[in-house]
């Protein structure tokens, strides 16, 4: 997969944002915006219409699952993958039910991230 994607990175930790940004750039994508809360992610999504969103789950003001639902309500074609430390089964199911198209657990490994993004693009990209 050589397609370069415009990515919105959502995470309340600046450390994770920086790490993810570096990994995404290394894979050949471009981070066009960063959000530190769920509400911010919704606004940023509308403003910058990214090709892909990486979404944390635990965040202040609105969690990533709710933000995923709201983004998809406005744009059903939005491609959102969860990048989180929560691996509990109910959390995974909630995220998939909300419409997440991939699930990556921390620590984020470049192979895992690449593989998940490739799958999302192959399966869902229109």
């Amino acid at each position, binding site marked *: 997969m050589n397609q370069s994607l415009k990515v919105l990175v959502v995470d309340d930790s600046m450390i994770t944002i920086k*790490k993810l940004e570096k990994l995404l750039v290394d894979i050949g994508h471009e981070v066009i915006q960063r959000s530190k809360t769920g509400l911010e992610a919704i606004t940023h999504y509308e403003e910058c219409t990214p090709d892909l969103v990486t979404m944390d789950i635990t965040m202040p003001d609105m969690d990533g699952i709710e933000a995923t639902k709201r983004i998809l309500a406005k744009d059903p074609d939005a491609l959102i993958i969860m990048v989180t430390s929560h*691996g509990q*089964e109910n959390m*995974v199911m909630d995220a998939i039910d909300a419409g997440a198209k991939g699930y990556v657990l921390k*620590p984020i490994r470049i192979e895992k991230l690449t593989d998940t993004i490739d799958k999302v693009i192959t399966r869902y990209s229109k």
Partner: protein
Amino acid sequence: MKHTAEMSLFNSLFDAIPFGIYVADINTYEVIFVNKAFTSATKNLVGKKCYKAIYHEESPCHFCNIKQLMNDKNEINNQTVIHEKFNEVNDRWYQLQDKCIGWPDGRIAKYSIAVDITELKEVQNSLAEAHAELALKTKMLEVSAITDRLTQIYNRVKLEEVFDYEMSRSNRGESGFSIMILDIDKFKSVNDIYGHQVGDKVLIEFAKILKQNIRSSDTLGRWGGEEFMIISPAIEKDDAIKLAEKLRVKIDKYDFDTVGNKTASFGLATFTLGDTDDSLVERADKALYQAKNNGRNQVVSF
């Protein structure tokens, strides 16, 4: 003297534990002690704020559980909280055992024993990721089972399911519904003149026009070949005719890529008490047949 003796006892006890331990003042968040195992993994953090030194946060962490370790009177409640935490700074997972104690100098402190469980979590995480992948594939299968591959609208399986549902609702007297079967006029000639690839493109565009112009409660699907069906719940006959007419005009005015203008014929049937699955579809079929016989590009309702 007592203070120093107690202090060295603490030190030796904590140093005997093979896992990292740090102790922080619960009021100032200042790190007041780290054991040998902790120092070997990090730089000496004594005197720094725990949230800043360990988690690189600018203010106390939102997951900090000092409050859970104290009672309402701000006294130690002797509880131990055990939790797992991923540290974003060094990319490692820890199981933390947190408890408050009275420090020899009189301060109340929280100590955390941190067991590195990164390897264990990697295994657990692979399982959770496999779970997610399975859930995603199941979802995709569910969608593909009811989707027409070419046009990406519903297929006949879904249409029949919705049809049965509306039929039983209407038979219970809840509300009526209408179905329309529509067919692209002279579609065979598109395939004959331009080939099947162009024919497929016309079908895709046709489905798109219909999808964009029906109500959100309507179900659109491919009935077969160049035939489509729309099931409209809770609709009066006149409104169903209006909807069909609107779609007919949209198609008539649409400029299809390569083939230019195309028209469609519509057969409409509205549920009446006593209708069976077969009788309703048969009426819609007959109406469509009549629309074709009357010269195509029109709506006929029975």
